[in-house]
């Protein structure tokens, strides 16, 4: 129940990667010789698969080491150091870090529902604004931002829009060509592909300065030898997109079943807008119980969940996302994120509900 952190590798992905993890096989996609050409073919086939899954052009795809790098490439690559950059208070830390590193930046607040208002963006735009970076589907709460409205505004004002779609890709259908956006970040391991690979789609005509330079790879926009096995796996994961999307309605029903069962818990509250949300994510706070303690208790009971983004875990600070939504420190600390995936079943959900009830009761008794 922690699929927003990472997803299990699909069999098709494993098979595609295996071909490139054979001892003795040469796999530099930049080499001119026969082996190099085979690797190049694989990389380009994957690029086609990713482009097709995103609904963009093949040449618009830049493979990266993952979403963090893609986010940084979009933000650092598309803006000059003195240009104004805007993002929101509920972003992934990789975006916040990059935006905050720019001297001239604005961080938009969100409402209690976790959504950013288009009006507040309109107010924040200045003559010097070059880029807006928005997380489409929030990794902690599942809340979706109104990308179309935000994109239309950016178009009107001649500002670039970068969208972090890591959690949305594979969960909601979209075609980048049809959206008023300029760049989009996606990641392999959030959609049953491998870790260590992601991509930035960049609309034709948007100029980008590479953050990693010194090689001609990725049409000079991302230097470094291609990770052929991971890219092959990412391509295979993208090939599965139609099947993955067809699962989402069932997953949404499971999520609703989970909430139906948990809503009975005394002092529980659901965090974030339920009407505009990823189909798989449920973020709740149990009042009077620390999220950290819940996580441990649930793990010992065989239920894997998260208290927010896994990146801040290990040492738990109250979630910046929930704090930005105006939750009290206590509620933010009591937050638990359930994020479902294709392998979850109704029986599992029922079992999870019963174990959560047990753990909450024991925690409250001990307190």
């Amino acid at each position, binding site marked *: 129940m922690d699929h927003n952190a990472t997803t299990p590798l699909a069999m098709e992905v494993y098979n595609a990667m295996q071909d490139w993890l054979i001892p003795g096989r040469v796999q530099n996609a930049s080499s001119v010789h026969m082996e190099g050409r085979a690797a190049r073919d694989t990389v380009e086939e994957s690029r086609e698969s990713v482009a097709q899954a995103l609904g963009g052009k093949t040449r618009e795809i830049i493979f990266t080491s993952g979403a963090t790098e893609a986010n940084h490439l979009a933000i650092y690559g598309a803006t000059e150091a003195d240009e104004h950059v805007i993002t929101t208070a509920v972003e992934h830390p990789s975006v916040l870090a990059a935006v905050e590193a720019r001297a001239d930046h604005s961080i938009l607040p969100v409402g209690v529902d976790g959504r950013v208002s288009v009006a507040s963006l309109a107010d924040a735009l200045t003559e010097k604004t070059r880029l807006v970076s928005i997380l489409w589907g929030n990794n902690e709460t599942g809340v979706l931002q109104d990308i179309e409205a935000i994109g239309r505004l950016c178009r009107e004002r001649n500002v670039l829009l970068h969208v972090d779609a890591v959690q949305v890709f594979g969960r909601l259908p979209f075609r980048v060509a049809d959206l008023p956006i300029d760049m989009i970040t996606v990641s392999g391991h959030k959609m049953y592909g491998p870790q260590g690979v992601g991509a930035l789609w960049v609309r034709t005509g948007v100029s980008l300065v590479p953050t990693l330079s010194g090689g001609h790879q990725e049409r000079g926009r991302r230097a470094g030898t291609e990770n052929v096995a991971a890219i092959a796996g990412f391509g295979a994961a993208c090939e599965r997109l139609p099947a993955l999307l067809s699962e989402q309605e069932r997953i949404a029903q499971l999520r609703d079943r989970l909430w139906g069962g948990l809503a009975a818990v005394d002092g529980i509250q659901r965090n974030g807008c339920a009407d505009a949300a990823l189909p798989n994510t449920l973020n709740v706070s149990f009042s009077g119980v620390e999220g*950290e*303690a819940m*996580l*441990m*208790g649930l*793990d*010992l009971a065989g239920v894997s969940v998260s208290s927010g983004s896994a990146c801040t875990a*290990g*040492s*738990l*600070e109250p979630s910046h996302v929930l704090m930005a939504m105006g939750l009290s420190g206590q509620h933010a600390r009591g937050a638990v994120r359930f994020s479902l995936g294709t392998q979850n079943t109704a029986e599992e959900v029922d079992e999870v509900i019963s174990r959560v009830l047990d753990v909450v009761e*024991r*925690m409250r*008794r*001990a*307190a």
Partner: protein
Amino acid sequence: MKERVVVAMSGGVDSSVVAGLLVEQGYDVVGITMHLSDVPEKVLEEDQQGTCCAPDDARDARRVAAKLGIPHYVVNYKEQFRKSVMDRFVEDYQRGLTPSPCVRCNDELKFKALLERSLSLGAKYLATGHYAKVIRTESGTELHRAVNEKKDQSYFLFGAPRAALDQVLFPLGNMTKEEVRAHATRLNLTVANKPESQDICFVPDGDYAGFVERQITPEPGVIEDEEGNVLGEHGGIHRFTIGQRRGLGLPGGTPKKFVIGISAGDGRIVVGNDTSLMADGLVADRCNWIGPPPAKNTPVLARCRHRSVPVPAVVTACDEQELTIRFEDPFRAIAPGQAVVLYDANVPTRVLGGGWIIRAIDANQEAAA
């Protein structure tokens, strides 16, 4: 079903062996490392290691847990630790006291927050790598010194409420350090040869004054003798502790002097001869008793700082809160802010409890009073 035990794993050899032994004994062991403070990178020298509770130690603990095949978690107690231990450490120095942060950490973090967390996870016990013993008798749980005199940590544990002791295990209470290291080697734990942690975990370089000065602006004051003659100046009372001889910065040729008094109100440091350090007794408050408070005239053994040998004394007044004792022979350099821990004179390993020293009693003062 196996009984669950939470082990407070610091990443050091002691608590790692505790986890390993409890796994062998068939418990359902869960490892927890407390994340207490972030030591600034610049304070850490490359060759410094083995301070408890730093991120590297959490990693060591995690690796030991993985080796033992037990679940392991890091819990964030930074805020509580800052408030109840680090801030208090600075405040104590500001008030002219000699702080005892390890006792406070045990009282507020280990045997309170972590114990509560352990119980909420369904554990029957919280186990730690302390060198001390709990003995469960018909009249209640008792706390005793470790068999290993050199390692005994019972002094740091006096503040644990009896109800907490009911729920703790100290599996190393009967072992020597060599035996512990032998177990670590036998269990193939990577931390077997890790050096001991020595200093206070949040001041790994041992520079307490420097730590205090990063938190507050020190106020200079004067150093004077018992007659009130000013002998010199100092950079802040936090640099001194009762009985201190070095670092007084007095002009050359001044006869050997010791700090005998710290006056927080006006920032005075009073120095005097060794004889002025001798106390006949002491008064302590905020006591904790493991059992009923000792009655008046009870002979006890009193330990007034860690690593000092408990000395014979008699209880002259005592209730739940406050304690007064008189030493059989005058005792040197009583430092307010430190704990006094009493042991049973008849069963010298048994901890009766103790309190926080508020002042020494010396014969002259009493005659005057």
